[in-house]
C-alpha cells in the first residue's frame, strides 16, 4: 500500500525568556509578528502542515516558557519530541550561554532513545535589532558551538522581519522527520484510529 500515512511531528522550542520563541512560531505558522505576545506560561502550541520532499507532514510546534523557574515541570511537554529548537537572542550573550543548559536539560527530561543523534536546530533571533549593531554573539561563535555539539544546524533569524524563518523550520521539519521515521519502524502503515493506545509512541504513557 502506498504510504499516505499522516505523520505528526512534535517540535519543542526552548530558550531564555524574551528571545522570541513565541514570535518565531507565530511568524512561521501565521505569518504575523507582534511585539505583544504575552509571556508564555506552561506551553502553547500551533500546528502547520508542511511539505517535506514528497511527504506532507503535520508539524506540531510546542512553545514553552522561558523563565528558569519550574523547568522540571517541562517534562510533560518534552515527552515524545521529534526535534528540539534552541533559540537565543543574538544581542544577549547570556541567552546564548544558556543554550548549553537548555540542551542538557532537554536531553535529561525528554530522554530520547539516541541522545547523541537527537536532532537540534539552533536559531539566533533578533538579528534585525539596531541593524545588527547591538549584536553580542557572532554567527561564527554560534556555529562553533553548534559544530562542537555534533553539527547542529544554525540559522540567524528575525521573527520580526521574517528572515530565515521558513528555511529554519523547513530544516527543523526535515530533521524531525528523519528522527521520526527511525522511531517508527514498527508502526503499521495503516493506523487504526480506534485503537486504545497511542499509535505512534510506544514509550508514551509509562508512569
Amino acid at each position: 500500500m502506498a504510504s499516505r500515512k499522516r505523520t505528526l511531528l512534535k517540535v519543542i522550542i526552548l530558550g531564555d525568556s524574551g528571545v522570541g520563541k513565541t514570535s518565531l512560531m507565530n511568524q512561521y505558522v501565521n505569518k504575523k509578528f507582534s511585539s505583544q505576545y504575552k509571556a508564555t506560561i506552561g506551553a502553547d502550541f500551533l500546528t502547520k502542515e508542511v511539505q517535506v520532499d514528497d511527504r506532507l507532514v503535520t508539524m506540531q510546534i510546542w512553545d514553552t516558557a522561558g523563565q528558569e523557574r519550574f523547568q522540571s515541570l517541562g517534562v510533560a511537554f518534552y515527552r515524545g519530541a521529534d526535534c528540539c529548537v534552541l533559540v537565543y537572542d543574538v544581542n544577549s550573550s547570556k541567552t546564548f550561554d544558556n543554550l548549553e543548559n537548555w540542551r542538557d536539560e532537554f536531553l535529561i527530561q525528554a530522554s530520547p532513545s539516541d541522545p547523541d543523534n537527537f536532532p537540534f536546530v539552533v536559531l539566533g533571533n533578533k538579528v534585525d535589532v539596531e541593524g545588527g549593531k547591538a549584536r553580542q554573539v557572532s554567527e561564527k561563535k554560534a556555529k562553533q558551538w553548534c559544530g562542537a555539539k555534533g553539527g547542529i544546524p544554525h540559522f540567524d533569524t528575525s521573527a520580526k522581519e521574517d528572515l530565515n524563518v521558513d528555511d529554519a523550520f523547513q530544516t527543523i521539519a526535515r530533521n524531525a522527520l528523519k528522527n521520526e521515521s527511525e522511531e517508527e519502524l514498527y508502526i503499521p502503515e495503516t493506523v487504526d484510529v480506534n485503537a486504545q493506545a497511542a499509535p505512534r509512541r510506544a514509550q508514551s504513557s509509562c508512569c
Partner: protein
Amino acid sequence: MSRTGGGKEVLSTAAVVVGVGVGVAAFAGLGLAGAAFGAGVLSASAFDSFTARRAKPPLQHEGVKRDEQGYIENWPKVLKAVQDGGVAPELRAELWPLLLGVFPHTSTQQERSRELEQLRRLYIKLVLVCRELDDQLQALRNSTSGGSNGSGTSGGNGVAVANGADEAPADSAGLSVRSEAGSASASALQLGTRSPVPLPGNLAAFAEAHRIIVMDAVRTDLRRGMQHPAIGGRASIGPASGTGPTLTILPVAVGDGLPELMMVGPPPRDPTAPSTEAELAEIAADPGAAAEAGQLPRWRSALAHDMLWGAAHLDDPHRCQMLRLVNILSAYAVHDPETGYCQGMSDLAAVFVQLFDDDALAFACFERLMRSARRNFKHDETGIRHQLQQIARVLRDTDPTLYRKLQQLGAEDCMFAYRMVVVMLRRELPPVACCTLWEMQWAHEAAEGEACAAAGGGLGGSSSRASFRQQQTGAVAGGEGGEGVSRTSSDGAASAATATAAAGLRSTVHGLSEATASARAAAALGQRPASSGGRQSGSARLSAAVPDGSSGEDQPPEFVLQFIAAVVRAQRGRIMTDCREHDDVLRLFNSLQIEFWPSVAQARKQHKAYVGLGAVVRG
C-alpha cells in the same frame, strides 16, 4: 486512510493548511474573532454571554449595610453573597481591599483612610528602595563597562565597585530610606566601598527580576479601551483589558494584521505621567507628606524607559499603566525577595493596576493575593505540585472513571492545569468572569478564616488590629529582623541597610491584619502534599475517599481548585473519547472554552462536600 481524518486528529483539524493558533480558535468560539470592530462591541457580547447563565446576581451597593461611619454591619451576609455571585463592578474598588484583608472588615471609613496612608508610606519606601538598588546597579555598571545601560542584559558577576557614588545624581532616596527605617545603619547611601566586590547577590537578584518585570510589563494586557463596566465600574478607573480569554497568543490575525492590543479604545482621560526626578526627590525627602497627599512615586528605571518609551507601538497612557505595573512588581520583588518575580505574576498584578488608581492600594491588594499565590511560585515547585495534586485529588474523589482515564493517559499529574493554577484562570477566562471567580475565592477564604479564628477562640477583630499597630510601629522603629534581601555580608553597608529596610518593610506589611494572615498560614501548613498511596478503587466516592485516602490531614481544596476540577470534569466527554495520548489532554486544555456559571455551580457542590466532610472529620 485520509491524512487528517478521524480520531485524535479532531483536536488539531482547525490547523489544517495554515494552522490557526489555538488562541485564535478560542477567541472565535466566543464570537470574538471580529476583533476589528473594537473593544466596546466585544465586551458587550462577552458580557452578555457571561451573564446569561448566572445563578445568583452579584452583590450590589445596596446589599452592603454601612453605618454612618462606614463600618459594614452585615459582613457575614456580604461574604455569603460574594461567595454566591461575586461583586458588582462598581463596588469592586470598595470591597476588594476588605475581601482581601487589606483593611479589616471591622474598620470604619476613617480607619481605612488612616491605614491607606500607612500603606502609601510603606509603598513609597519600597519603590524608593527599588530606585536605590537600581542606582547602585547603574553605578556599578558605569564604573566597569563605561556606562552602557545594556537593556536586556543583566550585569555579570564580578563587577568591581569603583567610586560608585559619584555616578548617582545627588538624590536622597537612600537617605530617606534610612531616616524612615529608624535606627537602621545610618550609612545607607554611603556607597563608597572602595575595594572590588562581586555584584552582591541581592543586587543581582533584583536586576534580574527587574529585567524580566519590564520585559513582561511591556507585553501585559493592560488595555483601558473598554468603557463597559466589566471590571471596575468607574470609567476613570479604566476597567477591563478586553474581554476575551487571554491566552498567550493574542489574536493577531484580525483586520489588517494589527495585533488586537494595538486597537484600543479611547485613551483614559487622565494619564498620570511618570514622576520626574524632582518629584521623586521631593517624595524621598518627605515620604510622610507624600503619603498624606496621595502623591505616589512612578519611578522609571533606565531599562523601563528604554523598553516602554522605546516601543513605538505604545501610546503614553499605555506606557504609564505599564510603568505602574513595573513599579508594583518591582516593589513586590523587594518586599518578598524569596519569591522575587516569576512570570505569571504580571497577569495577576495587572488586574489591580486596572482597578485602582492608587498604586499603594493596588500594591497592597496584590500583596494580599500573593500571600496565598506565592506558594505557586516557589522555586522548589512544592507549591505548584501540591496544587495540582489537590485537583487530582478532587477528580479522583468525584469521578474515579475520569481519573482512571487520566492515569491511562499519563496525565494524572494534572500538568495540563498548570497555567490555570498559576495565573488563576486569568488567561482562560474573560476578565469579567475571572474577577468574579477571584472574588468568590476571597470570600470563601475570608469566611473560612473567620470561622477558623472563631473556632480557635483566638484573634478577634479588635485584638488583631491592635497587634497590627504594634507590628507597624515595631518594624518602622526597629528595622531589625526578618529574612533580609541580602545574604552576602561583603557587599558593604549600603545594601545591608537597604536590605534591612526592605526586611523591615516586609514584616511591617506582613503585620497587617494578623488574624487573616495567621489563618492563611495555618491553612498553608495544613496543606502538605497528600500521600500518593490510598488510591480509591472503582466506585469509591467522596464520602469514603477523603478520610481514607488523605486521612483528613489536608484542608479542603480551595475554591479556585474546585473550579479548575469542575472545568476538567466539564471536558469529561472529550477526555474519555477524544484523548488517546498524553499530548491530547494538553492540547485540549490549551484551547479551552469554559462555561463559567455551570463550572461555578459544580465547584460549589464539590466545595461544600469537602468542607462538610472536613467538619465531620474534625467533629
